[in-house]
């Protein structure tokens, strides 16, 4: 980390007032974000929220409509190949196309960087050692994604972009991928990943940004996000009707409920909100266009 070119005061990624319009569609609608060096940052949001558009602007593939962006201290739109050498990029989606084996692809990619990782060690780390001689067409979708991860990190990048990296992985492959990301983090690599999987963001990320309709609706640590939904959900059946109450004080509600019920309370359930509940609530709020929706669901 100390040998990096940027002054440490400059974050790895800085976004100020980012807009990207396609005609009337505001895919990114005023985004601000700073990601310090060494952070693992997860960008979450529904399809069409602007995640990939944002990431592709940071990667220098798309032009922005307005706003300031620096990635490793450089404006991606005017960045050169020296800057590319410090990045690792895993695009969304993968391709069966290509006549090179996994090992050949990595050897070629490694030849483009000044301090690449060892090809065989990288194949091992992504769990493709046994498939080193296979071409993309004979790899499964998940295996191709793992090859994409390997290609993104082979150049020992300072900053890695992973756009929906684990789509199509089986649970074991996902765990293995998480271990890989953790080892990258230990090397001091800054990582920006987009994902649909809350457990993945929860497990890997130092901070999570939730984006909906091109705006950041929440930006917090996983713990911080979870604590946002203080209300527990208590549900039971009373007089043949299912009832659900969301409350910050479930114990008080239970005392009162037990006091007025003889014997067992039918269908009693107390559920503390998961990260998923928080996420869905935030997305729901954003799509309704207001920030506070605290009504009980009956």
């Amino acid at each position, binding site marked *: 980390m100390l040998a990096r070119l940027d002054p440490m005061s400059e974050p790895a990624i800085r976004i100020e007032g980012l807009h990207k319009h396609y005609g009337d569609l505001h895919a990114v609608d005023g985004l601000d974000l700073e990601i310090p060096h060494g952070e693992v940052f997860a960008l979450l949001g529904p399809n069409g929220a602007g995640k990939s558009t944002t990431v592709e602007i940071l990667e220098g*593939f798309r032009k922005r409509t307005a706003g300031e962006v620096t990635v490793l201290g450089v404006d991606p739109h005017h960045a050169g190949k020296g800057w590319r050498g410090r990045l690792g990029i895993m695009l969304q989606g993968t391709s069966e*196309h290509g006549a090179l084996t996994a090992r050949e692809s990595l050897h070629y990619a490694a030849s483009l960087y000044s301090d690449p*990782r*060892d090809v065989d060690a990288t194949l091992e780390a992504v769990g493709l050692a046994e498939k080193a001689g296979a071409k993309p067409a004979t790899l499964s979708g998940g295996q191709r994604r793992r090859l994409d991860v390997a290609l993104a990190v082979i150049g020992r990048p300072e900053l890695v972009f992973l756009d929906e990296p684990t789509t199509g992985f089986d649970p074991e492959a996902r765990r293995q991928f998480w271990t890989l990301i953790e080892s990258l983090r230990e090397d001091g690599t800054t990582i920006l990943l987009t994902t649909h999987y809350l457990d993945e963001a929860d497990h890997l990320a130092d901070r999570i940004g939730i984006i909906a309709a091109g705006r950041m609706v929440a930006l917090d640590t996983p713990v911080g996000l979870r604590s946002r939904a203080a209300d527990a959900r208590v549900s039971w059946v009373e007089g043949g009707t299912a009832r659900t109450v969301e409350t910050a004080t479930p114990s008080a509600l239970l005392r009162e409920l037990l006091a007025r019920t003889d014997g067992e309370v039918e269908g009693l359930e107390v559920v503390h909100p998961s990260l998923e509940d928080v996420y869905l609530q935030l997305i729901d709020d954003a799509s309704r266009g207001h920030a506070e929706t605290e009504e009980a669901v009956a």
Partner: protein
Amino acid sequence: MTAATASSAPTWTSMTRSRLVVELKEFLRSREQMVFIFFFPMMLLLLFGSVFGGQEIADGVSFAQYFLPGMVASGILNTGFQSLAMSIAIDRDEDVLKRVHATPLPATSFFAAKVAQVLIVSVVQIAALVAIGVAMYDASLPSGSGWWTFTWVFLLGTAASTTLGIAMSSLLRNAKAGSAIITPIVLFLQFTSGVFLVYTQIPTFLQHVAAVFPLKWLAQGMRSVFLPESFEAAEASGSWQHPATAIVLTLWVIAGLVLAVRTFRWTRHDDN
């Protein structure tokens, strides 16, 4: 993951070299490219040679001998124009170009490797065609100044084909439909430019149409290399037209270069 390999900073040359290896492997391992681009002219030479080979079209020149320079020219067009246009269009559709663009490989390295791959494939292809011509159809190798003519016609023809192929790839918005667009263009040129048919035997207005495009000049230039000097009188203009060939091909190189540079993109057309 942390084990480092001993290495030095990659240079333009080292990156171009490793990209060239990738391009050659992609070509050699693609059945479509090997059959329809590499072996196709040889198969046609053998087919046409055995069917019409014996017919004399001028004193001491058989149809097979006339067909050889046509196939050499056509091979240059196939390998440069057809193959590049198709493979780059598919690579763009499949985000392969986007992946290339995401790496530190300089754009000039990428194109230099493509051009080098086309040159290598073309040279091997032409050598095989000429070997067939010499072995089976009494074709003779060029002598002295013939090699010089061959070299500049080959290089200008390849340059025109390659730049136009790269430009064409940008017009193929749907790579899967690519061969449906490219094949008729190439076939039309082959029939009108003195490749499948003797140039002087096609209607004059078609000769004029063909004379706008590079293949006619490329084929005529190759005839001046591989046919006896006496055949010059049998050309449409009674001359090999070397200066005009150089001018037309150079103009196409410039047009191709301008179009290629202006239209090339690393990402799909719907990806902006």
